[in-house]
């Protein structure tokens, strides 16, 4: 839909109009005439992914900064960093999850009722500080890893880039809220663990979805969802609930990416299994059966929180509950594998995890 020639002619005839080109109005190379109205959830990315702007190409030769649907220029600068294929990063749920992320942002400063933090026995607060030291340690990694791939995501698939930014924001808030929790009780940070730098070794976006989203964040999500069990007050419950909500989005993004890849490129199944083999090996080898969510010190801290203290009875109770969390982690992991199309992993899973399957 071009601007009427009459108007253009008049503009050119105006004083000062002689140097106007106006060909971009005369012969627009991008689709025009879109009138997208907001729906129940406002004006969303899905609403505007319509007509040619919603045609997401399976591959692209666009190596410039051009956003999907914009008109090209012949002198636009190129960068070879940009991945040409949709399957390299696409996740069907990215638009929805991004919009949800925007709507469900929260503040670690005011949305957690810090003033209500009760005075609890020191051993309990020590254990909470230890758990939060572990959590605050690994949270940035979950932002650094997706960030690493953002420069490769083409403007043709910009929704993926936007989702990654929302995950980076969420992880920052997680780092921050767990740090605050460790510092709120007069104890402070405690023993750092071996950390999660290994996740940064990912060499491929789908490898990242397998190792970070499906396994790493998946296990953390299951644990946060059971936060009621080890939370010591409304403050902790709220903190874990809010964090769990965010993790669900990250996990869902990765799951939907893997599902897409396995559907579009079934030849990658074996390769993806090897990433999971590696993760399960790492996760299964931790001592004190704590490897599934951190080092031995985190397992012990969790057991103390779950059992309500350090007496033998309490610890026994704590480790039993911890085992229940592990079971849930492994079974929810298995469920995600089924969703992405890797249900055959039930037979291939590391024995220590297999033992916990229903």
């Amino acid at each position, binding site marked *: 839909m071009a601007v009427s020639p009459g108007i253009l002619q008049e503009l050119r005839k105006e004083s000062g109009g002689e140097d106007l080109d106006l060909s971009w109005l005369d012969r627009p190379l991008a689709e025009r005439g879109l009138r997208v109205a907001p729906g129940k959830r406002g004006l969303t990315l899905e609403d505007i992914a319509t007509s040619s702007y919603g045609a997401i190409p399976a591959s692209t030769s666009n190596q410039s900064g051009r956003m999907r649907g914009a008109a090209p220029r012949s002198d636009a600068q190129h960068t070879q960093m940009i991945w040409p294929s949709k399957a390299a990063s696409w996740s069907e749920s990215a638009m929805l999850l991004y919009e949800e992320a925007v709507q469900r942002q929260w503040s670690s400063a005011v949305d957690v009722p810090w003033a209500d933090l009760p005075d609890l026995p020191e051993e309990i607060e020590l254990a909470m500080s230890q758990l939060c030291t572990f959590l605050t340690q690994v949270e940035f990694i979950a932002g650094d890893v997706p960030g690493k791939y*953002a420069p490769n995501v083409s403007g043709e698939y910009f929704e993926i880039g936007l989702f990654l930014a929302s995950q*980076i924001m969420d992880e920052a808030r997680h780092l921050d809220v767990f740090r605050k929790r460790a510092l709120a009780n007069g104890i402070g940070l405690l023993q750092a*663990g071996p950390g999660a730098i290994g996740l940064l070794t990912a060499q491929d976006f789908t490898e990242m979805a397998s190792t970070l989203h499906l396994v790493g964040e998946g296990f953390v999500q299951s644990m946060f969802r059971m936060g009621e069990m080890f939370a010591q007050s409304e403050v902790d419950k709220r903190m874990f609930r809010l964090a769990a909500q965010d993790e669900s989005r990250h996990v869902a993004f990765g799951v939907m990416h893997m599902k897409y890849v396995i559907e579009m490129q079934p030849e990658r199944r074996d390769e993806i299994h090897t990433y999971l083999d590696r993760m399960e090996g790492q996760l299964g080898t931790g001592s004190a059966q704590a490897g599934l969510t951190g080092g031995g010190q985190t397992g012990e801290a969790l057991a103390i929180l779950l059992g309500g203290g350090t007496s033998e009875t309490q610890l026994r109770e704590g480790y039993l509950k911890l085992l229940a969390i592990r079971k849930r982690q492994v079974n929810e992991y298995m469920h995600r594998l089924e969703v992405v199309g890797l249900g055959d992993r039930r037979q291939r899973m590391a024995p220590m995890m297999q033992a916990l399957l229903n």
Partner: protein
Amino acid sequence: MADSETQGQPQAAPIAPEIPGIPAPPALDMSWARVPTARPAKPTIGAEGFTLKMADAGEYAYAPDHWPYENDTPRGSYPAKDRGLPAPYTIYEKAEVWAENCADLYEAAIREQWKPATQVSWSSIEPLPDHIEASLDQIFSNISEQQYNSNAVLMGWLKEISYGYHEVKLYLATQTFDQARHVEAFRKRALANGGGLGVQAPGFLSRAVFAAFKFTELTVYVNIIRTAFLLALCERGDAIGRSQADRQLFELTANDLRRHLAYGVEHLRHYLLQGDDAKRRNVRAWLERGEIMLAADLRRDRPLREALILVLGGSVQAGKTALRELRQAQLRRYLRALESATFVGHEQHVNPALTEIIDNP
């Protein structure tokens, strides 16, 4: 006594029932509870809640000039004996990333986050003459594309910044999320009112952003040059926008950009004050490069130039005058930012390519 951590305790009897394949838990150790980390004072929570600045009080506030740990050890925790793989971080010097205002900007950004889908009065937009709508869309497309570039590249830099400067990484996360929403919001506006996207940008400055070798160089291009120019444009949103929604977009974006500029200015100031002449020389080189690339974009981008002329004036002539005023305002914004960063007197040294396109836009 973290040293006792790996020595273990005498094996006591297992305390939970065994499941085949699952080792029994060990006896109580709690060496992690005896590590010599600082005990902070309990905070008194005020109206702003429990802020990062309050949390990182006392010893926890101290960010050393050089961060010594190569993994993800949180600042203030007791480092593990087994730290696993050294991370790929390359930035361990405070001078390369620090800005004194990060913790405050981080909390401010979270307080001020807005939601493009629901907080912009999309239904306030009325149909406009085709050439005006198309011109607005050209401007919106340009902003969306610029912010996508800033955002994508910045996200890629996070893995370079070591863990000790968490305030910086936290702040930068808010900046990426702001930029993502700018990409989103302006694209939505371009598609909402009978229009579509315009022509892509030439991409000279975007290419420089990709090619930045140093983090401070990146912030010079993104947080100083691009942001100052974009901010001055958004601050004229009343003259550009035609609806309440347009004005909201410009106003909310400007508010975010002021934080981005504030980080850029504070960081540049810190970088310059920590250093010697060499640092000043670096900044001069980056500014020159950024100015040349920006000038190339402005000179080549005819659709953007003409869109601004058509939108800013009631007539072509008036539009041209208004465009020159806009360009001058942008340059002033930029120079003022440099002055605040203690880089004074630059108005005499702006690259001629840029002054030329400012004077004859």
